């Protein structure tokens, strides 16, 4: 009671300074898990317990947590693909123009995930696809792991015989979800800069799934491989060439601790505009926003839209040499470890802006609030998609319309009044 009464009580099981410094600077009070808390920044293991049928507990109105109960619908590689495939089929069934296909049967607007199969379940389907293009390379990823662990590349069926043998045994094989793999067509024509491969890490905050309201952090970054990219098959085993995860690159001989092999997204934009032109660059960034929103729409129907929850995702995107972006995966617990000084500043600000949106005014939350923060608190976030606003704009608006703004090097732009936006959703 007294002065402490109004202060937010926080708990976390992730000992990272970028988090703790943010809590402390708001004057919040640290408490233990078994005490009354208002804000819990939890790891994905903990969220499982909180919402599990056996051990879970009811959250009260003044408690919020940083994960949705079944976030894995988006953040597990196999479930993400499954949900997107389901979403596409649904749109196709209802005759939506979004599900339009081209003459080769590929989705025009929704082909943003590389061809993927689950193993061992879809092994035979995979083999069929593999044989259509026997010189292709595929990437094997364990469903439940992160940081590039357990990933390897294959270009021969013999390399994954193990999964075929298992699928052929008819008796019940208990596949613990940890051993399940996804196999995806490897993008062997990534866009290279300075001869090096890179991927994009973008942060997306979701405050509610129904209606969908999401924000994109303007300060994403590119992660470069330290070694020159080569599609040569002799280097398939060299993870320094292929995997951009910092956790892997950190151990390379050439890893640099000053810039950490990262570029800001605005650098990328400057480079692309200068070397490729403005239209194709705008189109690329537009497509990136599009695929993020589509991925969220795909899982929205199956997400438990618990009002105590918000989530900050780490989206990994690769751009190919035709400037097409591909969604590789979504991380529920993007790393809060800082590899460089710049990194630390970025992540500190990320958490700061996230908390400003998720916990309005830094006061004890009421999960029943409308989750519509005023523009001033967005910080480096900008609205990516606001379903409520998009719908309320009336019938003359394109139902696929967004109320987001283009994320450029300059940040938000004043909207042209009355004129159609130059870069539009398809």
């Amino acid at each position, binding site marked *: 009671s007294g002065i402490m009464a109004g202060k937010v009580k926080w708990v976390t099981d992730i000992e990272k300074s970028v988090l703790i410094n943010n809590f402390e600077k708001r004057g919040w009070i640290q408490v233990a898990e078994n005490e009354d808390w208002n804000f819990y920044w939890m790891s994905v293991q903990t969220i499982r317990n909180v919402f599990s049928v056996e051990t879970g507990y009811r959250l009260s109105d003044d408690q919020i947590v940083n994960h949705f109960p079944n976030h894995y619908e988006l953040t597990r590689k196999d479930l993400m693909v499954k949900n997107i495939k389901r979403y596409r089929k649904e749109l196709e069934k209802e005759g939506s123009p979004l599900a339009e296909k081209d003459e080769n049967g590929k989705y025009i607007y929704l082909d943003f995930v590389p061809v993927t199969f689950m193993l061992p379940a879809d092994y035979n389907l995979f083999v069929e696809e593999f044989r259509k293009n026997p010189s292709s390379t595929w990437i094997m990823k364990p469903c439940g792991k992160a940081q590039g662990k357990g990933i390897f590349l294959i270009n021969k069926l013999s390399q994954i015989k193990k999964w075929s043998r298992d699928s052929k045994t008819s008796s019940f094989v208990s596949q613990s979800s940890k051993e399940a793999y996804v196999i995806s067509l490897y993008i062997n024509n990534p866009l290279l800069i*300075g*001869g090096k491969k890179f991927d994009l890490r973008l942060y997306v905050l979701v405050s509610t799934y129904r209606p969908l309201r999401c924000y994109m952090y303007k300060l994403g970054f590119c992660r470069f491989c330290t070694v020159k990219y080569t599609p040569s098959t002799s280097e398939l085993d060299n993870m320094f060439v292929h995997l951009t995860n910092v956790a892997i690159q950190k151990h390379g001989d050439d890893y640099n601790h000053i810039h950490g092999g990262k570029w800001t997204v605005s650098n990328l934009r400057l480079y692309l505009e200068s070397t490729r032109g403005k239209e194709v660059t705008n189109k690329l960034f537009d497509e990136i926003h599009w695929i993020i929103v589509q991925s969220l729409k795909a899982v929205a129907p199956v997400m438990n839209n618990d009002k105590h929850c918000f989530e900050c995702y780490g989206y990994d995107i690769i751009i190919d040499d035709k400037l097409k972006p591909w969604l590789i995966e979504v991380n529920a617990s993007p790393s809060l470890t800082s590899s460089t000084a710049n990194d630390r500043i970025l992540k500190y600000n990320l958490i700061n802006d996230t908390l400003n949106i998720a916990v309005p005014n830094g006061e004890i939350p009421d999960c029943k609030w409308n989750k519509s923060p005023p523009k001033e608190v967005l910080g480096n976030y900008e609205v990516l998609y606001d379903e409520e606003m998009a719908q309320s704009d009336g019938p003359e608006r394109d139902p696929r319309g967004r109320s987001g703004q283009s994320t450029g090097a300059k940040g938000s*732009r004043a909207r042209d009044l009355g004129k159609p936006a130059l870069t539009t959703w398809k």
Partner: protein
Amino acid sequence: AMLDPDRGLSLTIARVVQRLQGSSLHSQLERQARVSLHKPEIKLESLKEDIKDFLRTSGWEKKLQNAVYSELNVFPLPCHPAAPPEHIKEPLAYMRKAQGSWEKRILKSLNSMCTELSIPLAQKRPVSEQKELLNKWNEMGTDEPDLSLFRPVYAPKDFLEVLMNLRNPNYENGEQPSFRNHLGLIQVPLKVKDISELKEDFSELGLNIGQLGIDDSAQVPPEFFENEHVRVGQKVLAEEDSAAAQQYVRQGCPTALRADLWALILNISNQPEDILYYEQLKSNVIQHDLLVDSLIYKDVKLTASNDDYYFVFEDYLYQVLLCFSRDTSVLEHFTYSSATPPKSYIQGKLGMEEYAVFYPPNVNYNSFILSVAPLCFLYHEPSKLYQIFREMYVRFFFRLHSISSHPSGIVSLCLLFETLLQTHLPQLFYHLREIGAQPLRISFKWMVRAFSGYLATDQLLLLWDRILGYNSLEILAVLAAAVFAFRAVNLMEVTSLAAAEAVLADLSTLKVMPLLQIFLFATVT
């Protein structure tokens, strides 16, 4: 002696004609003229006029115009028919002498490094090594040779010391009252512009004129300036007019047009013979090993590899710089530079010109490297990147590394900076001087690197737009003064050089165009 303008003009024409004769443009024009003979509109009775018309309508006249314009931009006007070549390099004797001594010092340092390390300045590479280098050409960054014994030949502050000690022996301090009161580090009385002259020269940066870097910010609707400016830029490119491009970029380049606009101004078209030339340089690199290669290597590792923006292009930097140090066509520019490059020969081939290599005056490659790196944001084709860099060097950057009286030379820039500061921010200037923090000690490294490595890349490119647009480096000195003006409040509170350095350590958030505009046009003088 003053030159009769007509005489000067005919001398200039003669020189330009002499330089363009025998160039590939010349042979192309001849070829075009010959081809045109088959065309129906070319009539025998009006042959000369018809061919001229044809060359105009087909765009070849424009190419010739661009080439002439380029020559005029790069080479200085002749001073007097009887002027000896040294005077074209540098009219002031004491400057020539100082540059000569500086070069001797550098060469001595290089030679002693060779002796210490028992490495010749230049030698032929064994065949196995050649093969290896060829394979690794695109990823020299992954090499880890032992460079611990190589040290930079000199640091920027060594060069500054030399400049500080320049004196005109014919000059008595007491004579010019304006200079008598000069309290900066540079003590030679070169003529530099004052604010009103700068305002005139840089009139396109005025408050009422649209600028990229100011009027294209997120808060400004693009209809006000940006859209129209882009349209004009596209038109300039379509017309392929170097002079128009140079005028245009004074208001900044749209990012998507910048690469082409710079190439147009520098008259770089990346013809097949240019690509072939680059490939020849590359094969020179493969075949011969130079001592400076190791210095280049070491300096790239120290600078670009650690830079937030440039690390990605590390490999391109090796390629460009290794080729550059074997490019004897760069020697041409030394006729108008105060420098005389030390020449060496591949070991065992003394005196044989085809085995000659030269050492550019700035063997401290830090500055070099940082002047190549921003170009990697614009050009990713190696031979084009190379040519653009070489042209930027022979037009501008070489003046930052040699001692001369030229208005864009580093000595003048330093003096301009100090004069601007002392005249318009006298309190700040005196304060910093009092605490042992002479402003030039801090700003020197910015200017000598044309701000590369200090500004954010997009800001740096906006600054270099104006260098090209005004064909002068004076803007570097103006920006340096503007930065001090911007941080004046904090600087007034510091009490040591180290603290002053700290205030000015991070320029990465600065927006250059507003700073320049305010300093030139909105500061009460």
